[in-house]
């Protein structure tokens, strides 16, 4: 990777790996469980064979060993529940749910136990569980391996949900999630893993607070709200809008639950127009939620109705030309921005 002067560039994958490594060094109660996260199981001759399909955990078993880096059988309900139980009794487990579509296999453990134990037990038991999961379309993987569905987790009280958008914020959000005393789901969009970012990633450990949005770009004419991969799309659209003579502000949500309502409202009070860009299915999506927030709490400031850019109400197709029609694009965002600025 070409280094920009004075900037420590890492890929998204390297940043995640570094965050995990630093947190495991810092706290001996942090363990990681998941399918193929090291690879090779307990075979001495094939250690660190895999590192997960995205290589997020590559190399960790060499430093931390099999007691703390645990390849699991393919049993999402079993090992997700084990993460809940371990979290309730003194560990800070990180469970790798390879793709978020596998929520369907372990939903009971996340939605009935992780989210509810603290409340049902009168606040007397904490579940400091971190779930990391692969999200997003654009990888020719069809409907079961391409969803985002973060809105499902966000819907459940008791869960926190973060949606990093670059190597800098993913590193800080991992540290914050692992140290948090509530269950936190980290959505890693796979399209962010293969691209280059000109952001500085400090070498040491740092946290980014869960529940705070980032103003990824300041502007005055229109607010573009992004999350995870769509923040990147919004930044690209903002550049194009600039060439057309418009100043777009990009609010990178970073966290969906809690959500930084005030950052959104503050931006829209300034720009008076908002476009929310969300890769999730449109019904009951984050985009819908933000649109409702703005309609309820900033209606008098709006020059135009809030505009949502979601995929259509359909599933993620396999065929690449079709799939390209699913994920929100820069062109769609620019068109939506021009529409609300008319």
């Amino acid at each position, binding site marked *: 990777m070409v280094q920009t002067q004075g900037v420590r560039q890492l890929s998204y994958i390297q940043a995640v790996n570094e965050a995990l490594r630093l947190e495991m060094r810092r706290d001996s109660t942090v363990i990681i469980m998941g399918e193929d996260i090291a690879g090779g199981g307990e075979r001495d001759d094939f250690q660190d064979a895999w590192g997960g399909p995205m290589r997020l955990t590559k190399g960790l078993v060499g430093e931390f060993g099999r007691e703390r880096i*645990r390849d699991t059988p393919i049993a999402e309900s079993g090992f997700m529940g*084990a993460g809940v*139980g371990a979290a309730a*009794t003194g560990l800070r487990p990180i469970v790798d749910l390879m793709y978020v579509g596998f929520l369907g296999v372990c939903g009971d*453990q996340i939605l009935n136990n992780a989210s509810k134990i603290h409340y049902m037990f009168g606040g007397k038991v904490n579940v400091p569980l971190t779930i990391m999961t692969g999200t997003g379309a654009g990888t020719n993987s069809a409907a079961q391996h391409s969803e985002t569905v973060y809105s499902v987790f966000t819907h459940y009280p008791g869960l926190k949900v973060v949606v990093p958008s670059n190597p800098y914020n993913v590193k800080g959000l991992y540290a914050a999630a692992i140290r948090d005393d509530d269950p936190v789901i980290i959505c890693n969009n796979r399209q962010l893993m293969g691209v280059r970012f000109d952001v500085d990633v400090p070498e040491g450990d740092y946290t980014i607070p869960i529940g705070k949005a980032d103003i990824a770009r300041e502007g005055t004419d229109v607010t573009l709200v992004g999350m995870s991969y769509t923040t990147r799309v919004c930044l690209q659209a903002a550049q194009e809008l600039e060439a057309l003579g418009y100043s777009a502000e990009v609010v990178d949500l970073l966290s969906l639950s809690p959500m930084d309502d005030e950052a959104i409202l503050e931006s829209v009070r300034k720009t008076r127009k908002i476009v929310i860009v969300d890769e999730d299915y449109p019904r009951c999506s984050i985009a819908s939620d933000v649109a409702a927030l703005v309609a309820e709490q900033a209606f008098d400031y709006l020059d135009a109705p809030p505009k949502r850019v979601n995929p259509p109400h359909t599933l993620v197709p396999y065929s690449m030309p079709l799939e390209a029609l699913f994920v929100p694009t820069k062109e769609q965002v620019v068109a939506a921005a021009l529409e609300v600025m008319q």
Partner: protein
Amino acid sequence: MAGYTELTKESVLWMYETMVTIRRFEEQARREADAGKLRGIHSSIGQEAVPTGICALLRDDDYVLGTHRSHHHCIAKGVNLKEMMAELLGKATGTNKGKGGTMHIADIRKGMLGANGVVGSNIPVATGVALSAKVRGTDQVSVVFFGDGASSQGSLHESMNLASIWKLPVLFVCENNRYAESTPFEYSVAGGSVANRAAGYAMPGVVVDGQSALEMFEVAKEAIARARAGEGPTLIEAQTYRYMGHMGADDPLGYRTQEEEDYYEGRDCIKRMEEHLLDSGLATESDLKAIDEKALAAIAEATKFADESPFPDPSELTTDVYVSYP
């Protein structure tokens, strides 16, 4: 804390008192439900011996995880009766501050990590509790109770496999009371045995008379020793019987025979323990009467405490959702 290691006069009398206390608690809970103070309970009457024989061997820092039918697990693990009864009535002084109720009683101080209303849901959690003990390097054990209905859930099979390959200190205890709500065990469990399923996961699978606390104790003793020694999990199938309906409102004679009920009630765990105590000279009739009176007094005190306790403050609706939420 029980923490007994052998069958002695002291441990056997503890088991007797525990079973009597469970039964008297459940009778009172039924009355509270009939009086409309709560909507209903899943009564554990008939199944008292199962957790009692096991919990006699457990320390406070060992863990128990239960089911929707878990009052007996809680009492056997030493949860405070007053706080339990207050929880049933939804009071602020309850074990869970009135937020969990009859199906979710938990008391971490006593190692009771919660009943759970979703059938089979706690089995993976208990496996993770055992993993935690192993990673932290303690000799704690984790015991999860579940019914014959839950034995068909994938969560049990995934957990037995995981616990076996990782040699986790967990006891999988099936309380086979013969009915999943109204569905008979013979119909729903292929092969007619839960214990046999252990073979597929390379762990011991033991069938035990769940209407005998003494037999439960002996089987659990071996399984707990095995768990503490790092040798891995055990599956125990305790054959028992639920005397009441699934949740009280249903009449079990709609799906089982009077003859069958009479058979199991004839093998009642408390009656048999009384016979043992009297025959072996460990207690006299008046000793037993005194124990029952003590249990009744404790339940009366618990009920008074629950009745006099306040309901949670309205502000409690939205507290405890998170540890912190900006």
